[in-house]
């Protein structure tokens, strides 16, 4: 913890509320959330469905406006930006990995990776070079010209990761990035994300409903009913091997979870 204070705060959330109106009743999707996230951290946000974890991610990425509260990312108050500024903010600082990959069907792998760079007005030659670098990094150096429908889910998600990395953002958001993948590919993709983010000192924030996947993160935020009920410092170095073993042998994940959740 003594190192945490010295570390640079990338995201600061203060007293964040998101209230939806459903007819006459108000639904508190987020009910007063405070936390800080540091540079280079891999954070997981977990919780059951409807807990508000996706809402939190959407607001961090500037896709939804909070009802109340502050979100300060790299010194900027996100909640005060209009949509135009938010897009510019995401373009400059944020990478995004989707559950269903969301690659553009009209473009091949390398073009998809280069797409966010084209939004920045970077010339084609430069962005293709950059895209090539990241495609190679995710292990798809041989699949540059493949169209999305010619690739497996795991390969598509690797392209998705490369796309999120290509613009070298400070923060990467991942919304259930392995939700559509089988367990073996899930492991590969997660480890890839973990490794690259660590190497590049980027901040990765991943939303997942699966507690086991969250154990890959440095810190785990547990959200229930719009409140953070628990922040867990992870010591995954110790039992990562066991976890992977458990995944591969098909052991019920709850057991591992319980053993760690004391």
């Amino acid at each position, binding site marked *: 913890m003594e190192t945490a204070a010295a570390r640079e705060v990338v995201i600061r959330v203060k007293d964040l509320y998101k209230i939806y109106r459903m007819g006459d009743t108000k639904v508190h999707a987020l009910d007063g959330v405070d936390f800080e996230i540091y540079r280079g951290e891999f954070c997981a946000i977990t919780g059951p469905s409807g807990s508000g974890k996706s809402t939190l991610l959407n607001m961090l990425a500037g896709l939804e406006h909070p009802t109340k509260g502050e979100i300060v990312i790299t010194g900027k108050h996100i909640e005060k930006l209009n949509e135009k500024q938010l897009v510019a903010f995401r373009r400059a600082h944020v990478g995004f990995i989707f559950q269903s990959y969301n690659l553009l069907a009209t473009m091949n792998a390398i073009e998809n990776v280069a797409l966010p760079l084209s939004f*920045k007005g970077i010339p084609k030659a430069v962005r293709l070079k950059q895209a090539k670098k990241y495609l190679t990094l995710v292990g798809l150096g041989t699949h540059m010209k493949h169209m999305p429908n010619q690739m497996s889910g795991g390969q598509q998600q690797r392209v998705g990761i490369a796309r999120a990395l290509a613009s070298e953002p400070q923060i990467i958001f991942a919304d259930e990035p392995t939700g559509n993948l089988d367990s073996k590919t899930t492991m590969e993709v997660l480890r890839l994300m973990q490794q690259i983010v660590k190497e590049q000192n980027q901040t990765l924030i991943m939303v997942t409903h699966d507690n086991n996947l969250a154990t890959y993160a440095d810190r785990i935020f547990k959200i229930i009913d719009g409140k953070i009920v628990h922040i867990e410092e992870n010591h995954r170095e110790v039992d990562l091997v066991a976890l992977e073993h458990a995944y591969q042998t098909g052991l019920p994940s709850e057991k591992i979870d319980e053993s760690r959740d004391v």
Partner: protein
Amino acid sequence: MRFFDLLTMSVNNLKRRKLRTVLTVLGVTIGTASIVVMVSLGIGLKEMTIEQYTSYGSLTRIEVNSNYGWGTDVDEDGFITDDTIKVLEAIPHVAHVSPVLSTYVNMRQGVYTSGTRLQGVSSEMLKEIELAQGTLPDPNANTMQLVVGNMVARDFYNSKTGKGYWDTGEMPDVDLYNRSFFITFQNSGSNNGKQKKYVFPVSGLVKGNPDEYNEYSYGLFTDIEQLKTQLKRIYRKNAIPGQPTNKKGKPYNYFIYDLVYVNVDEMDHVLEVQNAITDMGFYAYSSMQWLEQAQEQTDMIQAVLGGIGAVSMFVAAISIANTMMMSIYERTKEIGVLKVLGCSLGSIRNMFLIEAGFIGFIGGIVGLILSYGVSYLVNNFLGAALIGGSGDISRIPPWLSGIAVIFAIIIGMLAGLFPAIRAMKLSPLAAIRNE
């Protein structure tokens, strides 16, 4: 985003839905073609009208007649004399004024004979005559030189049989340019003797076949000063036929013109000058006044034709809007992804505008090609039957081609504007939703 990147994305999106794109482009093609063809018919009609009036005489020319009565009281104030010419020349926008002194002459070559009008006009006026052969009369020559109308020869008839071209259908064996012919002037009232035969050199022949009419087709033309000298030499103190006499039946000692051509600098000023001349008390006539009326008519026809074309373009615009709307609903998620990835709102809007504009552009180009085809067919197989005139009825000037394509692009973009703004405003959250 760079324009080229936007263009590439837009075109790729259009390629992805080929059939729909082709159908929408087809709509624009038909719309553009119908406007272009309709407008080209209007232009053709208008230009043909102008050409028709031009063949009757130059459109910038006003004919001014003196208003002295025929055989009634002689009013010397109404005479057109050299002084009148000076007044007419002083009217603004008048380029030059040419009096016309004409006299009736008989011609004879071999057994063939004919009568025509010999007109003396100013040398400026002579310059307007297009010649097939030879040169214009030299105003400084010793003898009067003539320009012969291209239809004059056909009117000769055989003096022995009394039959000419209109009776026999055969061209008389008359060549007024290469062979000399005799000219006799009319008798003066007081001199009943036989008139002398003259031979004048022919310096030029008016352009055109014997059946191609223009305003110089009939008659002989010469320089007015030389004609004056010639007439004075022939009639001396006697009254020149066609010239008015005073109450005592004596000729005036100056020439009185029964016709003056006033040439105006531009078509737009003709009516203005014509009114000024009428106000001076002369009879003025120009083709322009009739053309003006005819033009109002052709303008209206053109507007109606253009309107008919515009209807199909309007339908095409609706189909573009519809296609774009469909495309946006289909791509809601994709648009969301673009927004999440940081594609600016303006770029998203422009992407769709370019798509719609591109449909317009392709439709415009193809429509233009189609128009040229239709225009060719109309001109070659329908035109003559339709209006009976000669010349192309459907005319596509370069400006129309340019405007048609630009118009198609603008229509496409206008039709795409609403869908594009709709796309811009779509929520990025659509990208997050997982179906």
